[in-house]
């Protein structure tokens, strides 16, 4: 099986093919497998749901383009919830590639809910050196971001009236694909006591769980599954929900492949011993 066709077709090619089938078929036929909402995601939903109208929420797009399939559904679901609740949303980015994605997301979802730029939401733009940027927002936001993403002075926008620092912010949502949500915990939560909501890639989930257990974060939405759970809470079928069937079938395939691999290994070991 190692080489089915000279040196052109290897076992890994068969695995790639099976994986493609396992992902494509559920996307086309949509079997609608059940999805359960976990407590971590429910906690985020309940927290945002419980905020008074007009509360200010910062959403930081701390991700790169390579993780968009996980990050965009997550950001969309959280933004929809914020706008539905009539919260004031301030966008920013601590990674360069998240900048234009964040700006586009804010404008698109804001338009869905007829929100006005500058009054209901704003996009401050990108800042490098996350530690310094996070700490600076705790002192004076208008000093760190004198202008918005488009270069207009932010102090002139209605949304910025009375918004000075973290004391006026209900929560920071970090939509991040790396360890930047941890920086938010280190510098914004530990020093200023801000409520942090990490919306992260699945890879980062186990890194963030200790902060959940120590109650340093409000909840945890991880990966496409976290986004799908959030979509379910919003009663809205989005990209994440549609992708979850494919996720489940792909996981079943991987479990089967691991089992087959182990059976082959044990049989080979047995053969060598005999």
């Amino acid at each position, binding site marked *: 099986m190692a080489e089915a066709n000279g040196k052109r077709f290897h076992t890994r090619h068969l695995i790639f093919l099976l994986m493609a089938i396992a992902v494509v078929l559920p996307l*086309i036929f949509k079997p609608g497998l059940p999805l359960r909402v976990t407590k971590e995601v429910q906690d985020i939903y309940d927290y945002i749901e419980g905020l008074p109208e007009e509360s200010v929420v910062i959403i930081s797009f701390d991700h790169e383009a390579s993780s968009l399939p996980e990050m965009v559904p997550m950001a969309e679901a959280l933004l929809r919830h914020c706008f539905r609740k009539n919260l004031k949303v301030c966008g920013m980015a601590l990674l360069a590639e998240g900048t234009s994605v964040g700006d586009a997301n804010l404008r698109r979802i804001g338009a869905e809910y007829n929100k006005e730029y500058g009054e209901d939401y704003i996009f401050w733009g990108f800042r490098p050196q996350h530690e310094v940027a996070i700490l600076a927002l705790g002192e004076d936001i208008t000093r760190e971001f004198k202008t918005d993403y488009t270069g207009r002075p932010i102090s002139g926008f209605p949304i910025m009236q009375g918004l000075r620092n973290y004391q006026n912010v209900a929560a920071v949502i970090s939509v991040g694909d790396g360890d930047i949500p941890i920086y938010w915990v280190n510098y914004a939560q530990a020093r200023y006591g801000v409520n942090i909501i990490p919306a992260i890639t699945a890879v980062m989930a186990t890194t963030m769980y200790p902060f959940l257990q120590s109650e340093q974060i409000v909840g945890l939405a991880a990966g496409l599954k976290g986004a799908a759970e959030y979509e379910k809470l919003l009663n809205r079928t989005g990209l994440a929900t549609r992708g979850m069937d494919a996720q489940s079938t792909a996981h079943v395939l991987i479990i089967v492949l691991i089992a087959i691999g182990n059976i082959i290994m044990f049989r080979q070991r047995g053969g060598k011993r005999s």
Partner: protein
Amino acid sequence: MDISTTIAAILTLAIYSFLYRDNPVYKTAEHILLGVSVGYFVVITISNTIIPKLIIPLFVDGELIYIIPALLGIAMLLRVTKQFSHISRIPLALIIGVGAGIAIPAYMQAHLIAQMKATMLPLSNISNIVIIIAVLSVLVYFFFSRKHEGAFGVTAKAGIYFLMIFFGSTFGYTVMARISLLIGRIQFLLGDWLGIIR
């Protein structure tokens, strides 16, 4: 379907062609990605950081204090020259000093104190008992000044098992993340590009 969607779809397929074997089409797409990423980063940094945080305050608002960070920035760039590269140690030392000064207390507070506090739990339910046993046994495993034998060795062994469970769950989440990326691309190809799925 607009032209940008088709370009993105072709580049996606070019990258996936690596699954068969390394080839010039893949290499071309990879180089485009690198070039675009660097170009984008440079533009965003100039427009969102250097202009509003240095050029405008210094040359428009006339705040002369900004000469200091400007000089430090230039000193950092001297790193590429052989003759003056030693000057770059000044801003570098400042970054390291300030960075460590900011990071150490924050890290102590967020990671050490808060996590220790979260581990001091009443032994009133199974979860708390598991957390305490796991933390203690893993700490014992990482204590190398005593030979891992007897009761100490058994505890260390338990620590290894807890670590293995952690590695397993991390691997599971990693698989989930990678599959999500594949799903995202296939949703793009079949939905946005070909319009087969909605």
